[in-house]
Structure formats: structure tokens, C-alpha cells
């Protein structure tokens, strides 16, 4: 097996990453790396609208088509409207598909309702200028007539009365007559949301103040926390403003559709079923790997680097079934992270360990702006490049990262050392390559061998169980692409 590697996602200029010119080599250029197509591994993958031969037009067409089924009657020509977006959407396939969906929503709402005051409010995680960077990069400020802004969790808040008591949203998210929830269906943070109310989550996160986010990650527990978003969404305050939701529907291969609905819970059921159907197999497959070296090589913080639509944090937790709600804790969540004591021991014996298959992590390219020390503490880590190490040393969220990581001045040396010390030649690269995985030949052979049994188990055993735990009708699987 010696197939040409897939092109990795390009580096990106950002204040949260090193100057791309300092990345002297991408992991896909390493000797012996092979491109393993998703369709070779997992059959029955849906066709993508992006990437596709039609280019970005396919996203616009799909958005227009799905919005034909939406009722706009709440919005009138004098209404103010906020289209609420989130940073993660811009990390798919360079960001253009999500940007195009946002532009198209604006155009359609303007045309259908006559509303002129349509703004883009883009929420974010912990990198408070990240969406500003995307807004500039995709010309969204001009497109929205100077009314596109990023929102950070420390910006002005608004109290929202909910079934859980007072929680806090971002004032700028809600400073319009109506809101449109413009998101994506990628499973991404399944270690946090557990595919429970996936479509609702931004109401407790991207559109919420730090008090609410802290409630989610610290106050309620790993599964109960997902009710935070639901309680905000169901509040009278939000219900009065909510117009509809529009989602870029994702699969590990790319965007497969755009889906919109006035009923967020109907959309949520489709997102829940589709996410488990499309991502369950690749995540389970990663969990079946026995040993490997992981290379981080994507313009995102450590847990968010992608391989075949799956983020590194998913691999870290892939030694348990993260979709199984009977397991309270994945090996990585912010609850789990707090449950280790000062000696590094878990406070309870049942705290699951980090995926032991990850023998070493080579950090070739990943951003700051997310507390990632936990990963370096639990898995041997080699940082490539002094510039990147210094970036982490200055980051208030990663002051201790390099205390646990070795430093190498180039990727080849880091990989050679990782191979020697970890005793494996298997390499898994998280580089955002579209269409498949970039892996070592040895790992490609392993994956091809185990894939059929893993896929069969997901179809026959796991998927029915996951759906049942969430009270989602299995017939929905036929409806989702």
C-alpha cells in the first residue's frame, strides 16, 4: 500500500498560531505516509456538496433550497435580525462553505422579508479575536454592510431567566428583534455534548457569557450540563426572538447538505441521528487502533485539529464509547480534567484513562488559545520549533504546556525520536486533509483490516443503542443523507 497522501489543510495566518513560514514541513510530506480514502475504509458514505465539482455554488443552492421550507412570517421589513454564527463553522474546509451559507441566509431573508437591518454576530470559544479574523478573511464585514462582529464570552451580558434559574447570554447576540441560529452538525465536541442536544449547544456556549459556560463545564456534571443550552433556548426571552435555524450538515468527507427548520428540536433529531450515523464508524475505528504516534498539524488549538472530520480530542477519548450515555465520563472532558489530584492520580478509580493507544504526540502545528496542558501531561509530547514553544510559553492558557513537552527543532527528528522511544512505526496525522486520512503504511494496513468488523458492530449494535438512549426514531436514519 503506497498511495499519495491527501493535501493537508493549508496553514493560516493568525495571532493564535506561529507564522506559517516557520512551519518548514507538513506531516503529509514525511516519508512513508499514505493517503487512505474514507470510502476505502467505510462504505456507504454520502455524497458531498462541498467539496464537489460545483464548487461553492452548491452550498448556496442547498441553502436556498432548504430555506424554501422555512416560515419567515415573524420577520417583517422593519425587523432587526441577528444571524448568530460560531467560530467552529469556519474551520471546515478552509471556512468558505460556512461563510457562503451565512451570506446566503442573509440574502434570502432580505429578499423574503424586506428586512434591511441584518447583522452577523459570530460567537467564539477562548480566542477572543478568532471570529474577527474569519470575518475579515471572508469579507463578511462588507457583505453585512459593516455589521459583522465577533462576540466574546467576556463581553456585555444579559440575564436570562430559565428553568435552571438565571443564566447569562451575550447582549449583542440578542440585541435584535429576531435571531437566526446558523450552525453546523459536525459532532466535534462529542466528549462534551455527548450528542445530546447537539443542535442547541451554542445557546449555552457561543452565544453565552462566561458564567453560563462555567456552569456547563463546572457546575452540573458531564451529561446534565447539556440542559444548560436547552434551558436558555426554551426561555421566554429567547423564544420570542428565535426565528429559525440553518445548519451546514457535515460528514467526515465534507459538507453533505444544508438543513433548516423553524423547529429546532426537529432539526436537532436529524442532527443527532446523522451525526451518529456519519461519524460513529470513524470514531470507533480510531478507538480500535492499538498503538500509534499522533501528529498535530492543523490551524486550530490542540484538541481541535482534524483527521477525516474527527478531532484529536475524539481520539483521546476513543478508548471508550463516547456516544454511550451509560458511561458518565469520557477520558477527556473538562470535568475529567479536574478529577486528577496534585500527584496526577485520579480521585476515583473509575476515572477513565486517556486513550493508551496514543504513544507519543508530535506537535508540528497547532494553535494556542485553549488550555491544552492536560494533553501534554498525560501523553509524551514533542513540540516542533522554538517559535511555537515560545508562543505557548506566553499564552496565559498554556503557561505549563512546555513543562511537559520536549522540544525538537524539526519534524523529521521529532518523528525519529517518537518512533524510537514509543516502539511503534504507526503514524496518524491530524492535518485536516479532505477525503481521507494521512497515515503510515503500517497503520493503513491495520485500519483496512479492522474496519469491516468495526463498521458492522456500529451498524448492528451501537447505532441502535445510541439512538434509543436519546429517544431518537431510528427511521430518521433513512431521512438523513
Amino acid at each position: 500500500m503506497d498511495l499519495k497522501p491527501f493535501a493537508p489543510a493549508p496553514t493560516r495566518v493568525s495571532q493564535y498560531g506561529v507564522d506559517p513560514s516557520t512551519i518548514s514541513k507538513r506531516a503529509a510530506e514525511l516519508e512513508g505516509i499514505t493517503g487512505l480514502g474514507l470510502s476505502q475504509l467505510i462504505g456507504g458514505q454520502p455524497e458531498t456538496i462541498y467539496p464537489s465539482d460545483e464548487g461553492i455554488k452548491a452550498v448556496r443552492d442547498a441553502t436556498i433550497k432548504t430555506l424554501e421550507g422555512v416560515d419567515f412570517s415573524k420577520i417583517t421589513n422593519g425587523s432587526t435580525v441577528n444571524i448568530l454564527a460560531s467560530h467552529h463553522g469556519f474551520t471546515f474546509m478552509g471556512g468558505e462553505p460556512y461563510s457562503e451559507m451565512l451570506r446566503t441566509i442573509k440574502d434570502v431573508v432580505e429578499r423574503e422579508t424586506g428586512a434591511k437591518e441584518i447583522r452577523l454576530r459570530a460567537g467564539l470559544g477562548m480566542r477572543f479575536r478568532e471570529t474577527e479574523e474569519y470575518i475579515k478573511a471572508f469579507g463578511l464585514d462588507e457583505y453585512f454592510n459593516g455589521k459583522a462582529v465577533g462576540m466574546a464570552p467576556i463581553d456585555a451580558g444579559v440575564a436570562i431567566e430559565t428553568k435552571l434559574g438565571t443564566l447569562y447570554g451575550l447582549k449583542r447576540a440578542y440585541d435584535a428583534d429576531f435571531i437566526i441560529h446558523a450552525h453546523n452538525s459536525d459532532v466535534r465536541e462529542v466528549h462534551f455534548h455527548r450528542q445530546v442536544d447537539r443542535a442547541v449547544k451554542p445557546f449555552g456556549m457561543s452565544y453565552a457569557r462566561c458564567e453560563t459556560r462555567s456552569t456547563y463545564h463546572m457546575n452540573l456534571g458531564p451529561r446534565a450540563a447539556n440542559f444548560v443550552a436547552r434551558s436558555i433556548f426554551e426561555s421566554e426571552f429567547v423564544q420570542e426572538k428565535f426565528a429559525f435555524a440553518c445548519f451546514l450538515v457535515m460528514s467526515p468527507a465534507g459538507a453533505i447538505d444544508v438543513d433548516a427548520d423553524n423547529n429546532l428540536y426537529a432539526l436537532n433529531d436529524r442532527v443527532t441521528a446523522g451525526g451518529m450515523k456519519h461519524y460513529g464508524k470513524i470514531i470507533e475505528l480510531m478507538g480500535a487502533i492499538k498503538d500509534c504516534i499522533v501528529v498535530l498539524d492543523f490551524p486550530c488549538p490542540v484538541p481541535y485539529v482534524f483527521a477525516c472530520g474527527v478531532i484529536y480530542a475524539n481520539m483521546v477519548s476513543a478508548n471508550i464509547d463516547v456516544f454511550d450515555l451509560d458511561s458518565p465520563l469520557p477520558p477527556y472532558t473538562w470535568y475529567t480534567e479536574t478529577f486528577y489530584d496534585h500527584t496526577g492520580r485520579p480521585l476515583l478509580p473509575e476515572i477513565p484513562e486517556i486513550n493508551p493507544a496514543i504513544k507519543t504526540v508530535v506537535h508540528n502545528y497547532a494553535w494556542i488559545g485553549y488550555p491544552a496542558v492536560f494533553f501534554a501531561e498525560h501523553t509524551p509530547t514533542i513540540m516542533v520549533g522554538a517559535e511555537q514553544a515560545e508562543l505557548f510559553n506566553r499564552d496565559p492558557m498554556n503557561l505549563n504546556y512546555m513543562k511537559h513537552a520536549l522540544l525538537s527543532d524539526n519534524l523529521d527528528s521529532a518523528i525519529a525520536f517518537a518512533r524510537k522511544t514509543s516502539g511503534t512505526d504507526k503514524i496518524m496525522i491530524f492535518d485536516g486533509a479532505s477525503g481521507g486520512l494521512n497515515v503510515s503504511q503500517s497503520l493503513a494496513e491495520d485500519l483496512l483490516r479492522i474496519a469491516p468488523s468495526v463498521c458492522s458492530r456500529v451498524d448492528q449494535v451501537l447505532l441502535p443503542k445510541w439512538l434509543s438512549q436519546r429517544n431518537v426514531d431510528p427511521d430518521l436514519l433513512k431521512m438523513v443523507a
Partner: protein
Amino acid sequence: MKIVKVQAEVDQSRCDGCKTCERVCPVYAVSVKRVDKKPVVNIDLDICVGCWNCEQRCPEYAIQMVSCTPFTLSVNVNDFDYGEIEALCRKAHVHPKQLVCYCTATRAEEVAAAVIGGADSPDKVVRACGVGAGCGIECNQPILRFLEAAGCSFERKKNSYQWYGRTVTAWEVSQEVKDAHPAFRFDDDKDLLERIVNAPIQDRNK
């Protein structure tokens, strides 16, 4: 505990006087005044904890973080009665040895010691032990839970965008919500948190 390596520095010529920096500072180190009709930003470097909030939110990009002589924000737990620390932690529903701040690796016992030592408002807690001087998001509620457990009440600074208030915990979710939404497994998760809170402390001084 946090080692502060950078602090904020302002380019006065770029400031338009919007006061965002003042409002997002978790420790009230920044003040903006008008002098001869021009905005003047004062950053008190004796207070600044190097969290980057002001730099990240300034719409005019007028603030930079610059290297400083490193200094440490920390409270020595051994200076306090550990029984008192432990009791306050359990009352706040946290284990003394668990992390409460991912960014600075601050553990609950140190936050408790800061509060027992006299930090009676969230900004003082941050300045005492560095908790909350990283992302400034996730440890927000534990800080407020500690203050409430210690009986400290504080008034939110007018016009600030900080410390809006304590929110619900697993111990306060209504039975009505639990009964209506069993899929969220409120009681199972509360039991898990309870077991964490009550887990034994091993090798306390290691």
C-alpha cells in the same frame, strides 16, 4: 498559582476612549479617564495579572502584552489550617485537590486558602492566587461558589462586564426539571460529583 510573564501596555494614541478594556478586566486594573477631552488609559501594573482580556477586546488594537519581570500569584496552603480549607472546599462542593482552573493549574485548596486569607471578592481571589487569570471563563463559577460558601457577598462594579453572578449547581436543580428531563441524568451526575467531593485525600503534602 500563576507566574505572570506579560502585562498590558497601551498605545494611548490609538485609544478612542470606549472603556472596553476597563470593563473586561477581571481585577479592575484598568481605568480610562478624559484629560483635556482626550482618553487616557491607566493600567495599574501592581494589579494587572496578565490575562490578555483587554488586549483581546480592544477594538482599536491599542493594547499589547509585553514581557515583564516574572512574578508569582500564589497562596501557600500550609500557612492555613487545612481542616478549615477542607471544610470550605466541601461546602463549595469541590474536592480540595481537584483542579478549578485549567489554565493556571490552580487547585481548589489554594482558592480556599485565598478566601480564608481575606480575599472576599472575585477580583481579590484572582489577584491572590492567579485563578481566573488564564482564559477567564471556566473557573468563573467555582470562584463565586467559594465566596458564597465562605459567606462573602460582593457588589458587582458598575458598568463592569465581570462577575455577573453565581448560577445553578447540580445540588440545586429542581425536582420538576429532573422529572421532566430524565435523559439528562441529573441525579447520576450529581452522584458522580458528590463522590468526587468526598473522595479521600492522598499524600496531602507530596
